[in-house]
């Protein structure tokens, strides 16, 4: 492992959070812009503290202490058992193991923050700040550590070759551990918080509520690219032993899959609506990054382009289906961009990845098992947690908050006080 390269890559990850923050506040309404940015900061803050205090113990490290049980002739490593409060992790770099553990903590702390900010996009314009902090704690303290342990911390998904004689589940850049977990949490939040007031008519027809600042959204995409390169590189080095050459491949593949995703979305929206749609194209860019991250160091550039292309096409249709057919009010398209594209990326790794051992069928099977764990275990866990939290701290702002906007309602001041606000926006309906 090259610790300097890994550290440098980790230092780029906050740019992914900055990009995603700009994207989801730009896709929301101007009356909730300051709230969206503060919510991002709070989610990052809560998740960092909770993960370092509690989550890191359960996330564990490969060949570290773990809770296990035996069933069906296999040893099921289901949860890390490291000390709480990150006790015992030495930051003096005295040994290679110490350094590796410290880097893992640092990376996973930032990754937990990314998981926590993905659902903000789905709850935009109606999700209150207090419940956002509680949900971030749930994600960083329980949900993310469990799946991070299964995939990266030596858990049962990463030991399937030993236990069941098939390939191990692989997730090089966190498409499953970060993106799908965050995307599924976004779906849960969209359901628990309900649609924005006025989003759907009595007949169920959705009203278009356009984002307020598409320039910030597009700038956020470029920031996210830099952050994603850092994220993909750091996880590849730390959990899969990628060397310098493979990291260069990661950078090339990230750029290619994002480009293909964006161009696919531009082409699809140009064909369907006669002009390219900027917000859907930005979603295509992020979807390409998300899908490409699963296999970032294990596929050829041509495969990375194909993976991004499919993600870009998928996301433009999925966003429409979620809104029109399924009546899920997800202003930033987080479910389509992070959950669906992430699942596609995980399966694509099995289909196109270069593996030293095991047949293609075994690798596809391992990836499907991982997807099944995300849908069948992680989603019920996060949804039950959100339903429980919603009982004690209602997620949805009251009716006054809907017409005032989250800035005035929760922060007492708007994001753009010098802008002229039309009176009808403040008349109760």
């Amino acid at each position, binding site marked *: 492992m090259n610790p300097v390269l890994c550290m440098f890559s980790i230092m780029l990850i906050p740019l992914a959070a900055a990009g995603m923050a700009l994207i989801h506040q730009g896709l929301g309404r101007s009356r909730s812009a300051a709230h969206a940015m503060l919510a991002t900061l709070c989610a990052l803050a809560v998740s960092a503290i909770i993960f370092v205090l509690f989550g890191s113990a359960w996330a564990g490290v490969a060949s570290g202490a773990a809770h296990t049980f035996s069933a069906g002739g296999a040893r099921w490593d289901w949860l890390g058992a490291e000390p709480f409060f990150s006790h015992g992790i030495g930051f003096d770099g005295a040994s290679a193991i110490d350094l590796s553990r410290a880097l893992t903590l640092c990376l996973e702390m930032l990754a937990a923050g990314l998981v926590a900010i993905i659902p903000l996009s789905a709850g935009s314009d109606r999700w209150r700040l207090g419940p956002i902090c509680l949900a971030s704690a749930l994600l960083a303290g329980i949900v993310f550590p469990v799946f991070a342990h299964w995939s990266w911390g030596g858990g049962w998904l990463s030991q*399937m070759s030993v236990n069941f004689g098939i390939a191990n589940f692989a997730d090089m850049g966190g498409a499953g551990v970060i993106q799908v977990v965050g995307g599924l949490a976004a779906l849960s939040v969209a359901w628990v918080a309900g649609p924005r007031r006025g989003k*759907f008519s009595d007949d169920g027809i959705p009203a278009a509520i356009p984002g307020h600042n598409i320039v910030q959204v597009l700038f956020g995409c470029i920031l996210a690219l830099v952050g994603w390169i850092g994220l993909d590189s750091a996880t590849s080095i730390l959990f899969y032993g990628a060397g310098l050459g493979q990291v260069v491949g990661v950078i090339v593949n990230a750029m290619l899959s994002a480009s293909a995703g964006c161009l696919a979305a531009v082409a699809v929206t140009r064909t369907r609506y006669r002009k390219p749609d900027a917000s859907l194209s930005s979603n295509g860019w992020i979807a390409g990054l998300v899908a490409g991250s699963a296999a970032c160091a294990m596929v050829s550039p041509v495969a990375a382009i194909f993976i991004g292309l499919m993600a870009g096409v998928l996301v433009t249709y999925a966003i429409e289906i979620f809104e029109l057919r399924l009546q899920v009010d997800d202003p930033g398209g987080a479910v389509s961009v992070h959950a669906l594209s992430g699942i596609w990326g995980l399966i694509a790794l099995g289909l196109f990845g270069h593996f030293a051992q095991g*047949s293609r069928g075994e690798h596809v099977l391992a990836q*499907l*098992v991982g997807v*099944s764990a995300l849908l*069948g275990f992680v989603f019920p866990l996060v949804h039950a947690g959100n339903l429980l939290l919603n009982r004690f701290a209602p997620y949805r702002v009251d009716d006054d908050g809907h017409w005032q906007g989250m800035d005035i309602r929760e922060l007492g001041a708007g994001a753009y006080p010098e802008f002229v606000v039309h009176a009808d926006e403040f008349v109760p309906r």
Partner: protein
Amino acid sequence: MKLVACLLLLSGFFLVLAALVLLASTGQRTAFVVAGLGVEILGLALLTQGYQSTTKEQR
């Protein structure tokens, strides 16, 4: 309906785990894992329908 949907999600996951433990060949395992994913997708569809009804009532 929502509770049944969540139980379907968990059932699909346990079907996948059972396939890993009980079956030996990659083909059989793949078939059962795909079936487990199918059950999970059924659960998600049912959950979506449940929340669509809730949204309709709220309107």
